[in-house]
């Protein structure tokens, strides 16, 4: 389709190119295919030597909207071609595109409409980065563009200085003309200078959240553009030159008040790119690099340096001190989620510094201070360990790895540990191989010479710079040295690798001490070359660097699995049954059994929290039945987690045919969540619905989804109709749940069995449970425990969004004697952020939440029903509800106003929470009356004897 040029195009897109004839048509066609038709494309060719002229000519003939300009001589940068294009354009709006990238289809139209609607000088949007090899899409600094907005000048949002690209914007022509902004022509990184001036001169610009530029990352390094040539020192010089020009732009536009923000941008974006590469550079390069950047860095605002992360500050200081090898070590995990500690630290008073050399001056003291990692205060789960891969040998069917683990905090000393090399994500383990690890002593050449003069013992190799030895045994467990070494052999023929694990998998080291563990990544040492193992394992297993963190080790399987053994008949049978176990088939099987097989009156099926554990009301009903030694036989349903149940209870795995069989045979069901809808209960089975908490949020037929989707509501009503008896803990529950669920059967007003142990928390058995929890989580004596247990957010399940507390901020504000147990809702996830292991423990997987409550001193929650149980303990409850309005309205809605009834204060800032904890006695006093009213209203029936009443009511045949 040919389209004739319009008289005045709405937008000119200036496509600059140099020796890129192969990709130019892709870029130009992405503009011609825009939803905006009334535009022009100006190809500016920086005097290419390839067949760009012919390709461009063809494009102009293909579509009349394309124009082609060619510079008489190569300019070597992007500035001159872009300026030429600007001069040639005829439109009221301009955009820039590089010939190796693309514009998303709506980019021009959506930016144009936004510019027209807002009157902004320019509009900028999100950049998509597409890895051409894998097709994976990531967004560039997405948080900058998260909201659609109009900004009254850069001072309103100085962090937007990070958007230093010229390409993700649409410019108003008159604004560029009036201000006279042009690209500098004699340097690379011209867009940094351009953007700085742009931001300083504009009084009104707009931001949109959608992608307006597609940045394509070429698969092969040979085709990488200027921005990817960071290994060249000339590139570093250009970057600094651009920063100097930006400073001049600030001065010229009377914007020196923005200098600190601009300096922070330089340090944390521009310089940071090079720091991240340091592990790939040799010390000589790093020394030259320091000569270029440090003189400039030393002119920057000290406040900007203080805004960097601790790891970045350490790295920069090591560069400054020309400690190249150590800088490379420090840079290994910049930008990663983990805090990777130094190999060793130096203590001086109460401060701890990076490395074995004490800091030489005041600046070094402030920059190399790693006290905040609290290396020695970490429990095993939070221990900051540095696992390095030091040697790798591959043969045809075997890979042998040697690892060294640095434990600068000496957390591992005196523990009996097992170690595993674990391949897989945090949730899923692909394979786990034992590692033999033992403490070692590393002796440098000098130390060895001191001990035994060279040549005397003969076996020392003087050329070896260092040598490890196993410390002398003195009986008992080996003494800790802060360094461990181990070897692990991966036998490829025995390696199990599921067919669906196609992505590269993280290689981690897992250390276990009983149930406690530590899981951290395995890193390559700087200079380690992965090319030597590229084809290891005859095409079966590849160990390689991670794509975004080049010193994380990843494993990937290439080609088919080693040998496909034909499965045995039982395996085939199990596989077939698993495939057939769809809800519909299970439902049919259940009905078939209930039509033909009589019910077994003394069989009780228990299920709690969808089979995820031995907990909740069903557990305490079960234990009451056990106490009475009835003839009833109990079977517990489990969702593939048998290890969470005591050994003496019968188990059946959920969603299997055996489960359907057990359900059909059982005379009683006791459950807390509503059993799968596919089982339409037979008449002779009695179903006790205990439910799993009192209600704050709207439930049952009152939930928006049930109101808007009648089919869903009908299914729900059918499922509720199965319940024969419903446990009610109080009058509010009756109204907000029993009625809202449309339940019509027998109500058992008994209180909650699960609160019995909480009411009776002073009894020795309960105190013992609390002690065990403290021991398990390594909570030092004298520390007090916050249990933080928020509920999940609808539509944001498993996003981590329910953990609203800003833990790093809280760490700074909290009085020193607190430890936080975080209990994420089963529908959400949580991991302890580094280095906060000393303060925070992840208790999400702990089997019994009652025990956590017993071990805690105060509860922090939001809208979770845990508040009603916790009130039985009588200990203080604080609410952290920074999203209260949103939850109450946009979320599913709540049944009563928390602010009116809460037995503790509603807090919205980490600072407020810290203050409340400081004045806990005062708050307890202030809320005494409210707390009592709350208990009366919601815990009125909870007197520690509820289990007995429930059993009396639901199992009348059972003797007391």
């Amino acid at each position: 389709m040919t389209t004739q040029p319009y008289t005045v195009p709405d937008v000119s897109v200036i496509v600059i190119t140099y020796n890129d004839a192969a990709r130019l048509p892709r870029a130009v066609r992405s503009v011609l295919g825009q939803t905006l038709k009334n535009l022009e494309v100006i190809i500016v060719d920086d005097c290419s030597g390839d067949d760009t002229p012919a390709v461009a000519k063809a494009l102009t003939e293909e579509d009349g909207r394309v124009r082609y300009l060619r510079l008489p001589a190569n300019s070597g940068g992007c500035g001159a071609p872009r300026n030429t294009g600007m001069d040639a354009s005829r439109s009221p709006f301009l955009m820039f595109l590089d010939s190796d990238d693309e514009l998303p289809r709506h980019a021009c139209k959506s930016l144009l409409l936004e510019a027209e609607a807002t009157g902004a000088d320019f509009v900028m949007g999100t950049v998509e980065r597409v890895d051409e090899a894998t097709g994976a899409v990531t967004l560039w600094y997405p948080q900058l563009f998260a909201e659609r907005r109009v900004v009254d000048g850069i001072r309103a949002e100085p962090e937007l200085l990070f958007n230093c690209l010229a390409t993700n914007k649409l410019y108003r022509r008159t604004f560029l003309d009036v201000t006279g902004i042009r690209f500098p022509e004699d340097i690379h990184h011209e867009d940094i200078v351009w953007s700085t001036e742009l931001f300083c001169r504009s009084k009104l610009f707009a931001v949109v959240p959608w992608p307006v530029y597609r940045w394509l990352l070429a698969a092969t390094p040979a085709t990488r553009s200027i921005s990817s040539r960071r290994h060249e020192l000339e590139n570093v010089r250009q970057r600094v030159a651009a920063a100097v020009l930006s400073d001049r732009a600030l001065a010229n536009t009377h914007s020196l008040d923005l200098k600190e923000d601009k300096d922070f941008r330089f340090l944390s974006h521009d310089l940071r790119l090079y720091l991240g590469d340091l592990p790939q550079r040799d010390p000589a390069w790093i020394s030259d690099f320091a000569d270029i950047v440090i003189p400039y860095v030393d002119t920057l605002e000290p406040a900007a340096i203080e805004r960097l992360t601790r790891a970045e500050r350490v790295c920069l200081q090591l560069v400054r001190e020309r400690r190249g090898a150590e800088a490379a070590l420090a840079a290994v995990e910049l930008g990663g989620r983990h805090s990777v500690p130094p190999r060793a630290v130096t203590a001086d008073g109460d401060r701890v510094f990076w490395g074995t050399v004490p800091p030489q001056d005041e600046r070094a003291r402030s920059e190399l201070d790693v006290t905040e990692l609290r290396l020695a205060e970490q429990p095993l789960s939070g221990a900051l360990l540095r696992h390095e891969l030091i040697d790798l040998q591959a043969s045809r069917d075997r890979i042998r790895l040697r690892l060294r683990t640095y434990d600068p905090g000496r957390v591992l000393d005196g523990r009996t540990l097992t170690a595993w090399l674990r391949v897989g994500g945090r949730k899923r383990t692909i394979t786990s191989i034992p590692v033999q690890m033992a403490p070692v002593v590393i002796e440098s050449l000098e130390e060895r010479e001191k001990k035994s003069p060279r040549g005397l013992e003969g076996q020392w190799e003087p050329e070896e710079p260092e040598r490890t030895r196993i410390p002398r045994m003195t009986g008992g467990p080996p003494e800790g040295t802060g360094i461990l070494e181990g070897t692990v052999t991966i036998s490829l023929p025995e390696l199990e690798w599921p067919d669906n694990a196609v992505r590269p998998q993280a290689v981690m080291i897992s250390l276990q001490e009983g149930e406690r563990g530590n899981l951290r990544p395995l890193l390559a040492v700087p200079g380690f070359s992965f090319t030597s193992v590229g084809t290891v394992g005859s095409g079966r297993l590849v160990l390689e660097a991670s794509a975004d963190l080049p010193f994380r080790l990843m494993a990937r399987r290439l080609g088919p699995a080693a040998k496909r053994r034909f499965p045995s008949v039982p395996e085939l049978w199990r596989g077939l049954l698993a495939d057939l176990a769809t809800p519909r088939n299970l439902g049919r099987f259940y009905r078939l059994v209930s039509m033909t097989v009589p019910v077994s009156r003394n069989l009780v099926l228990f299920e709690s929290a969808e089979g995820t554990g031995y907990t909740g009301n069903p557990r305490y009903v079960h234990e009451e039945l056990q106490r009475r030694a009835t003839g009833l036989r109990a079977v517990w349903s489990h969702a593939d987690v048998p290890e969470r149940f005591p050994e003496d209870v019968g188990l059946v795995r959920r969603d299997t045919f055996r489960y359907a069989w057990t359900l059909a045979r059982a005379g009683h069901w006791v459950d807390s969540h509503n059993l799968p809808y596919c089982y339409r209960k037979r008449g002779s089975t009695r179903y006790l619905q205990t439910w799993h908490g009192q209600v704050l949020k709207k439930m049952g037929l009152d939930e928006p989804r049930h109101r808007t989707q009648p089919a869903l509501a009908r299914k729900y009503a059918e499922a509720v109709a199965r319940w024969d008896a419903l446990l009610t803990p109080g009058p509010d529950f009756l109204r907000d749940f029993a009625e809202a669920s449309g339940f019509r059967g027998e109500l058992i007003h008994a209180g909650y069995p699960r609160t019995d142990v909480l009411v009776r928390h002073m009894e020795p058995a309960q105190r013992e449970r609390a002690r065990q929890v403290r021991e398990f989580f390594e909570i030092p004596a004298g520390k007090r425990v916050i249990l933080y247990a928020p509920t999940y957010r609808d539509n944001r399940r498993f996003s981590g969004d329910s953990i609203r507390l800003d833990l790093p901020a809280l760490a700074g504000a909290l009085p020193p004697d607190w430890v936080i147990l975080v209990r994420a809702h089963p529908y959400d996830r949580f991991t302890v952020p580094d280095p906060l292991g000393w303060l925070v423990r992840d208790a999400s997987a702990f089997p019994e939440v009652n025990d956590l409550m017993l071990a805690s001193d105060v509860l922090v929650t939001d809208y979770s029903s845990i508040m009603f149980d916790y009130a039985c303990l009588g200990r203080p409850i604080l609410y952290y509800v920074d999203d209260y309005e949103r939850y109450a309205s946009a979320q599913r809605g709540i049944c009563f106003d928390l602010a009116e009834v809460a037995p503790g204060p509603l807090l919205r800032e980490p600072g407020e929470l810290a203050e409340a904890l400081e004045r806990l006695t005062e708050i307890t006093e202030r809320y005494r009356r409210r707390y009592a009213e709350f208990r009366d209203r919601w815990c009125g029936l909870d007197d520690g004897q509820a289990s007995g009443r429930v059993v009396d009511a639901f199992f009348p045949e059972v003797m007391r």
Partner: protein
Amino acid sequence: MRSRDVFFLSTDGDSMGGSQRVIHTLAQGLGSRGHRVTLISINPSRQPQTYVADPVYRHATLYDTPAPEPAARSLPWRRGRQRRSPEEVAAAKRKLLRLTDRIDVGHGGHGGHGGYMVIASPWAAHWIADLPMPHIAKIGQYHQSYTEAVDSPNLKLIKKHYAHLDKALFLCDDYAASFTAHRLANCGTMLNPVSVFPEEAAPLRNPRIVSAGRLVRVKRIDLLIDAFAAAAPAVAEPWELHVIGDGPLRAALEAQAAQTGLGDRIVFRGQVENVEAEYLDASIVTLSSDFEGWGLVLAEGAACGLPAVACDASAGVRTLVEDGDNGILAEPGDTGSFAAALERLMSDAELRRRMGARGRERMRRYRLPRVLERWEALFDELDR
């Protein structure tokens, strides 16, 4: 003004429903303004409605038989739902291509499209996702609220399909902004036309409150009855509450009304022929739903010059009723504040008159000619 080819595509365009009414109203309106309009329903309806007596638009269905219904659940081994055969699907898709293919491409000059297809739901967009129609500008419309999209498969479908259409349209700016926050680049707002707009506003002389809608749980007529019972005794005039519509809860609600002691003043009218006349006979319109994406009742009531009392159920409701301007908003589910709002309006004729006039003013931009102009402006925007 140039004449255009416009297609309305919906999965079920002839059944009873609010969005169907809107589509037919728009088709007739655009047809009357000289555009060549075709209304395409993917499935024929089991109970087709007649929305427009003398259509000036073409009308087509793609399948020959209505959508299969879920089979009765009598036997456990019966298949739950019959599906259409692949041949049937292919034939229907070919039919759609034929219908849209007769278009004179390039008609109307530079950048013009061969036609404009208004897709009424994410499911319809899903159905045509694999059909090549490069000459047609495609506009996805979503007739529900953002919350409803989040609670259903629609959010995923919108992100998957509407993102690639030329425009995605939502009922109010607030909903459009919520989808934009998902990084969709092409969101906009299109108002639904209000077909009721009498020459003369309601005289507001009868002491009568009107409510219209199906008698189902979500509409919370129970709350309305309680609120009315609480407010009525405090006002001197003998106000009546007229509940229009039918539904499964009718008997229960009638019993509840009888218990209030105001049984004769709460009138259940069932289905009525002429809703407009009911609005004109009343003085206050109410919407007591916990949940409502937009609220056609409020729009029609305001167009007739009635002040409103409504639960602040969504951004859609807030675009129709501004608290204190053309009505009073109550907390959703809160009988007390609803009763207080009713009482305030019932006891103040001057306030009713002022708010009623403001409501009618507010509804002017929802009048059909204005909405049709917005559609034509949208077609112009797509042509740029």
